[in-house]
């Protein structure tokens, strides 16, 4: 069953199709959320909230009528932005001010973790659009056409956005080095 057929059935509240939608997209969404959030529980929350919003939209007669994957990733990205804004508006407790390191981690994994946090912090200094393009293009391996559907901009705009995003990311990362 292709994505469009699956979406049509899901819109008719076919329970089997709705379950299939979850099984098809939740693993990829989890990875996407984790890469941006760096936290497994938050990534799980992000996936759960994304599907909850999807069901709510269908219940209200809204939601996507095509390009389901793009819709789900866009929803997840919006949730992450909300989380980030909420987090930024709150004071950081002292115990969270240092980068959490997994217990029993080796110096190498700790170093990787620190690098990941540095890149995430750099990504969150970009605009939401720039961040989304970089994540979808270079980590999720999406094509420009798929990205254009997800962010609702034409392909040339996606290319331009990607160019500016890479420039900005390079500038931020080099400044923090």
């Amino acid at each position, binding site marked *: 069953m292709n994505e469009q057929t699956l979406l049509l059935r899901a*819109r008719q*509240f076919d*329970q089997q199709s*709705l*379950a299939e939608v*979850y*099984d098809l997209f*939740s*693993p990829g969404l*989890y*990875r996407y959320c*984790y*890469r941006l959030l760096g936290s*497994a*529980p938050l990534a*799980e929350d992000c*996936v*759960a909230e994304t*599907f*909850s919003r999807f*069901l709510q939209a*269908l*219940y*209200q*007669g*809204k939601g996507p009528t095509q390009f389901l994957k793009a819709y789900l990733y866009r929803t997840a990205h919006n949730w992450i932005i909300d989380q980030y804004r909420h987090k930024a508006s709150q004071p950081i407790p002292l115990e969270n001010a240092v980068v959490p390191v997994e217990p029993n981690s080796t110096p190498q994994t700790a170093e*990787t973790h620190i*690098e*990941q946090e*540095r*890149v*995430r912090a*750099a990504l969150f200094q970009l605009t939401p659009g720039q961040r989304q393009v*970089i994540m979808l*293009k*270079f*980590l999720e*391996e999406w*094509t420009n056409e798929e990205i254009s559907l997800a962010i609702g901009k034409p392909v040339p705009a996606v290319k331009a956005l*990607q160019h500016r995003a*890479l420039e900005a*990311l*390079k500038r931020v*990362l*080099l400044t923090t080095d």
Partner: protein
Amino acid sequence: MNHNQDLPPDLKDALNSLRAVPERNRHTAALRRQNYLASIKKLPAQARPRSFNISPRLAWLAAAMALVLVMLTGTTITAVAAQGSLPGSLLYPVKTSLEDSQLALAQNSAAQFSLLETFTIRRFTEMDTLLSANTKLPPVLADRLETQFQRMTALAGTMETPGMTLALTSLQEMLQERERLMTASEGHPDDPIYAQIRQRVREMNQLVSAGLADPGQYRQQFENQNRNSSATPNPNGTPGVGPGPVGPNPSITPGDGQGPNATPTPGNGQEPVGPNPSITPGDGQGPNATSTPGNGQGSGGPNPSITPGDGQGTNATPTEKPGATPTPGDGHGFGSTPTAHPWGGKP
């Protein structure tokens, strides 16, 4: 598809550090899936209509807005429908109320006068329409017309001479044309309202002519009138519209019928219109004379050219004179009581 070749080398390593994602906790993932499936089962078989999703506050707001819209639309429709209504119809009061509102919004006397002229023409058109449909004219038409006449004459009295002359000339043209039409037509003798209107048009014509002949006297008369009306405030708050009905006022004793023993009282109770040299107030000549005591054209003004009743004749008591047919003055003066109505209708 790997897009890493598009990445600058210094960014490739940085972004690749995010590529590795630890294995998802299976237990947590299964639990989340169960929750999702449970929420699917709670969904109804059909999508909920959007309108049901409106919050109560929004619903109240929408209801209030709808109500206002209905009221506004209803009012507009009524107002538009009333424009074509005729005297005696259900919507006619709406039409006249709208006219009153227009008048209230007019910025100056000239604008009000112009509007009143328009409304007067409208009244005549309504009259023509009713007559052409063989419908008897309702008293409300005559009442309305009278009110407009009074307001116009009063407004003209408040204007400076050039404006007054302009206004009265315009009114005179309209009235003359209407009088000509009414005279040319066979008339509607069986319709008393028509006869009254015709009479009033004629009287108004004469009044306006007098005003044009002596604007100063015309204005002075209205100033006196305004002083009088300001001394007795109108409890209804209706703006004093002027000189009061022009015409035979039963409270006024027209004609002085001066006989030889009569005290020559200048004036006959009618307010003067102005010096009309062609008019000699009631002269009461001779005992058997068929005098026309007092014509109401204004004898009592301070105009020396006018000789008030001269009291010629002997033992003449005009009211008792045999054969005398005292014709009451035609009431062209302004000085009658504003509350009196010339047609016996409502003031």
